[in-house]
């Protein structure tokens, strides 16, 4: 034991003499663990929220009965179904406003609530009697309580003047949802004896057929195994995970180079220890123990950093998820114990993985072999060849994935393979580029410059790989975000083409409003629209009806269309399909489909395909008049208005006053558009932040590699100094060398990044969302990124170079005095 301790102390003395190397090692481990666990914390947080949302009284995990027309239905159907043996529980849902904020109000019936409906029993138990008897209770997430600045037991007032039941905090609820007893909800929402849906319990038993009990009024919606929300957000989390993993590997590159260098430098020490009688086994054990100790310390620090990264990013992630999918997650980070354990474990595994090569070398260390500092240089050629072959293999895998892959995971695997292949291919490509440069050089110093760069390659290659990957991801993501942004904005303009949106209470009010609006001069056009929900191939599909008007013709870009498509849409036997629907049902222009309508199937020819970003449902757009003919029951209460721009706000307030409409019933589309753009911009805030982190880590990797190389390179530089090259000149050459290698890497990263962007847009997006985004190039942005990369390289190189420029000549002379 004592011997082990002494061995450890001897080994550790190395780090005392090379504190910078120790710092490098720790920084690598800390940043790897921090980014990885930070991203994991975000994912975990989001998943918990989805579970809460899914379990929320008949989220998608419970079978439900809803009205065929999607409206509320009479409560007596609930009683009829119960009496016919159906284990149903009633739910009424609506929105209320408290202090100007809008909430989802859920009315539940705790007594019949199926036990398997997530957190329902915990809500019901405890204060069951207080919950159902007046004044009742209103359950809300603790976050909602603090948002409203209300304490438990307070009775807020809804905007319609009704006093709501006393509030009670309930951990398991998601924000923006308020839960009350069904009777209270019916009162507050002014829906006496009305229900919005029935949850169907899993209890089996004798049930009368649904049609026999309720006629054709209700339909059964089967539960989803995974919720819609989870499917939708999967890609987002996969994205985050990919970023986390990338950062983790970049961090491990740093660790690997630090450990590798330390090992090289400690070789004589290891031999001496062996010669003194320390067994190979003990030496290895001590080396492993040393690594594990570092990993523990750095892992803990990394976890703390990870926590702060996650906490800092959470608002952005929350905003992204809300903006993209309407998924609500709380802004407070709650971490489980497993997270800490997993973080430490990944740190240890990473540290051991990164130092595996060195540890194996140490295990096989021949005691009496003399130092062979050039050995790795000799091995370089073979190593480059091997790496090149590996790169080719990985690229082949990528090609297979592109060709055969059919899932989101395959898309991400393709991305991973591309990046790995590129990283592996980098050293051979750089070597070739530098060899070319060497051939082109004629002056001796220039030739030395190229040759020395080549010789330096193996020491720098890991850091350069990290830089390449970080840059490529940056290029890819930036291109995707920018492409998405442009397309999305054009699409938004088309979608929100009319200036004012009106949603009347019922058909009668809609007619009154329309009649009134027709009299007004500033109203240029009234554009009614309607929606019907149907099931096509087992999936919910929206049928959207629009009138024939220039507003749509001018603003709706069609991805594909038959000639004269807009004219052909008019008669009502044709439809445009949204891109998602077309992909899902494999529809193309000219195909025919049949839509189930109340009066019998409605055959439609697809004459155009349009982009419908962000809509999880498939959509068919048809002529409005034809829609109302085939679906006579749909509410005809929505319409858009084209209005003289200067008159918009005056018209809105006049209409609102005249017909007592609230904010949701009449809206200024410009405001909606602005809000959508704001949400969109926040959506990718997280991506940008993670991008910056990865680039930062790559910069650190480069810096640490250069720092560790600086010392070992003195023997190469000293002879040059001795034959008359000044230190300043040497420093300048060194700087130039680093910058040129970095530049070559950055230039290589550009095509790789564009390839990554293409994969994201054309493969991952299609799999994740069902739409493909047009690929666009943004040269200015690319130039900017190369600039940033060069700046990072410069910052990383400048410290060792300054040191060299100011180095005492004595140090350089000492090189010749040493054994080397």
């Amino acid at each position, binding site marked *: 034991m004592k011997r082990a301790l002494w061995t450890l102390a001897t080994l550790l003395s190395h780090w005392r003499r090379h504190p910078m190397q120790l710092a490098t090692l720790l920084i690598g481990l800390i940043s790897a663990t921090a980014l990885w666990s930070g991203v994991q914390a975000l994912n975990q947080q989001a998943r918990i929220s989805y579970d809460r949302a899914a379990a929320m009284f008949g989220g998608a995990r419970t079978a439900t009965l809803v009205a065929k027309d999607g409206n509320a239905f009479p*409560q*007596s159907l*609930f*009683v009829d179904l*119960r*009496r*016919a*043996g159906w284990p149903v529980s009633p739910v009424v849902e609506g929105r209320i406003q408290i202090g100007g904020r809008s909430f989802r109000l859920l009315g539940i*019936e*705790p*007594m*019949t609530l199926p036990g398997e409906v997530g957190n329902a029993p915990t809500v*019901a*138990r*405890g*204060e*069951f*009697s207080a919950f*159902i*008897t*007046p004044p009742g209770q209103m359950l809300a997430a603790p976050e909602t309580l603090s948002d409203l600045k209300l304490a438990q037991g307070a009775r807020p007032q809804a905007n319609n003047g009704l006093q709501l039941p006393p509030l009670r905090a309930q951990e398991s609820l998601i924000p923006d949802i308020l839960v009350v*007893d*069904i*009777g*209270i909800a*019916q009162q507050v929402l002014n829906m006496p*004896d009305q229900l919005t849906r029935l949850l169907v319990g899993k*209890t*089996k*038993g*004798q049930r009368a057929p649904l049609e026999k009990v309720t006629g054709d009024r209700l339909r059964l919606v089967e539960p989803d195994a995974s919720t819609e929300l989870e499917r939708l957000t999967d890609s987002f989390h996969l994205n985050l995970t990919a970023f986390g993993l990338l950062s983790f590997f970049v961090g491990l590159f740093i660790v690997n180079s630090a450990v590798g260098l330390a090992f090289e430098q400690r070789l004589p020490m290891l031999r001496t220890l062996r010669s003194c009688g320390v067994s190979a086994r003990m030496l290895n054990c001590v080396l492993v123990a040393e690594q594990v100790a570092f990993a523990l310390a750095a892992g803990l620090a990394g976890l703390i950093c990870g926590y702060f990264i996650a906490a800092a990013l959470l608002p952005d992630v929350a905003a992204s998820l809300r903006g993209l999918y309407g998924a609500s997650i709380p802004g407070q980070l709650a971490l489980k114990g497993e997270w800490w354990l997993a973080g430490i474990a990944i740190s240890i595994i990473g540290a051991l993985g990164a130092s595996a090569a060195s540890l194996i070398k140490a295990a096989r260390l021949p005691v009496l072999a003399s130092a062979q500092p050039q050995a790795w240089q000799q091995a370089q050629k073979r190593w480059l060849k091997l790496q090149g072959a590996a790169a080719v293999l990985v690229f082949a895998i990528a090609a297979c994935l592109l060709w055969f892959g059919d899932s989101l995971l395959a898309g991400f695997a393709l991305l991973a393979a591309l990046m790995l292949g590129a990283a592996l291919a980098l050293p051979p490509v750089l070597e070739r580029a530098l060899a070319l440069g060497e051939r082109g050089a004629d002056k001796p110093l220039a030739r030395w410059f190229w040759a020395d760069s080549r010789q330096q390659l193996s020491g720098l290659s890991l850091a350069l790989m990290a830089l390449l990957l970080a840059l490529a991801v940056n290029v890819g993501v930036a291109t995707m975000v920018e492409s998405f942004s442009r397309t999305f904005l054009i699409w938004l303009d088309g979608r929100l083409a009319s200036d004012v949106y009106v949603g009347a209470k019922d058909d009668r009010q809609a007619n009154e409003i329309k009649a009134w609006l027709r009299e007004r001069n500033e109203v240029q056009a009234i554009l009614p629209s309607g929606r019907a929900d149907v099931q096509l191939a087992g999936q919910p599909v929206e049928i959207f009806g629009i009138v024939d008007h220039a507003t749509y013709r001018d603003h709706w870009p069609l991805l594909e269309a038959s000639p004269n498509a807009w004219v052909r849409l008019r008669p009502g036997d044709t439809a445009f399909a949204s891109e998602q629907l077309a992909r899902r049902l494999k529809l193309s222009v000219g195909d025919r489909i049949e839509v189930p309508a109340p009066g019998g199937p409605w055959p439609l020819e697809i004459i155009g395909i349009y982009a419908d970003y962000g809509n999880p449902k498939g959509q068919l757009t048809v002529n409005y008049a034809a829609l109302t003919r085939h679906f006579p029951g749909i509410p005809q209460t929505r319409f858009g208005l084209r209005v003289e721009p200067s008159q918009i706000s005056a018209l809105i307030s006049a209409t609102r006053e005249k017909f007592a409409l609230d904010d949701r019933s009449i809206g200024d589309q410009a405001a909606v558009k602005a809000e959508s753009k704001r949400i969109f911009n926040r959506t990718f805030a997280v991506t940008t932040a993670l991008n910056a982190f990865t680039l930062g880590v790559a910069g650190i990797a480069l810096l640490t590699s250069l720092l560790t190389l600086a010392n070992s390179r003195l023997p190469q530089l000293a002879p040059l100094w001795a034959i008359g090259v000044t230190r300043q000149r040497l420093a300048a050459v060194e700087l130039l060398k680093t910058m040129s290698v970095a530049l070559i890497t950055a230039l290589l990263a550009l095509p790789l990044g564009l390839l990554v962007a293409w994969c994201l847009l054309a493969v991952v997006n299609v799999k994740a969302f069902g739409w493909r985004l047009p690929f666009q190039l943004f040269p200015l942005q690319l130039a900017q990124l190369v600039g940033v990369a060069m700046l990072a390289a410069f910052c990383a190189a400048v410290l060792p170079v300054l040191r060299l420029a100011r180095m005492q000549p004595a140090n350089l002379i000492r090189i010749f005095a040493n054994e080397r």
Partner: protein
Amino acid sequence: MSASGITRRSFAAGSALLALGGAPRAQGFAGLDERADGFARVVPGRKFSFPADHGPHPEFRIEWWYVTANLRDAAGNAYGAQWTLFRQALQPGTALEGWATQQVWMAHAAVTRADTHRATETYARGGVGQAGVEAAPFRAWIDAWQMRALDGFDANTIAPLELTASTVEFSYTLKLSADRPLVLQGDAGFSRKSEREQASYYYSQPFFKVAGDLTIDEKPVAVTGLAWMDREWSSQPLAKDQSGWDWFALHFDGGEKLMLYRMRQTDEKHYASGNWISPDGKATPLATTEITMTPKATTEIAGRRIPTSWHVAIPRLNLAIDCTPLNPRSWMGTSFAYWEGPISFAGSHRGVGYLELTGY
């Protein structure tokens, strides 16, 4: 006199309903010993009136409609069936309409065979029609379970009735007929349950004859036999120091009926009581000193030792019988668990009946 018939039912009813209101209390079975402030009180001298009293009495806190049946199929195999509907008012005061009503309902149904026992429960809120009781025409229902008057219904015999219950594991449809009037328990239906003020209104129909179909695990059988109905309502039926009870409802081969119970008190002074009913419906109350009830064998269920075999002796009636359960595992694993199942007895007399054991 028949002080505690009330407690056996109140046990299940009150405890399970109130269980929804919080953790079970240490004593008095889930709040049944709570003060009845605000609810109507049970006082002697009430005049019963039928069919009105077959309907609910919402001004009282708890109430139940309780039927047990001893059945046989054509091959002579014995079965038991239980159907119970409980009403509870969560708050006193004026009855409110719709969902706001204070009335909540719970039901238990069970079937028993020598080799199997199946029990289930269900809940409902009053006010919307999911569960309830109507006096005329008589109808008591919760979800798809129902007890309803058939053609020729006589309110004085509460017969004929059709009784149905169905779950995934079992179902039954039984037709109940009776030609003898209802039996008012205790002092003309005023049933004292302790030496103090606790009491209930209580009447029974022990003379039902049964015919119907019973299905267990999708195997239907035609059955016939005898059934017993208890009707009881109160506001505070349980004393503080009562821990549980052992209750018998016995059909004698000679046509007599016997209601018997032993109330177990925390001070170990068990208090027995009963009512001997002749075949023509004449009731003879039995005092605690006249009754000996001795557990003979126990069955271990759900970690409890339940005395499922008994010796009962009533010297004044020259009665000494040994009661054995049809299925010693007739465990009601409902929100508040208890033992209830069919038994048979032999000795000085022979017959069948139902046994209920609570608080073990």
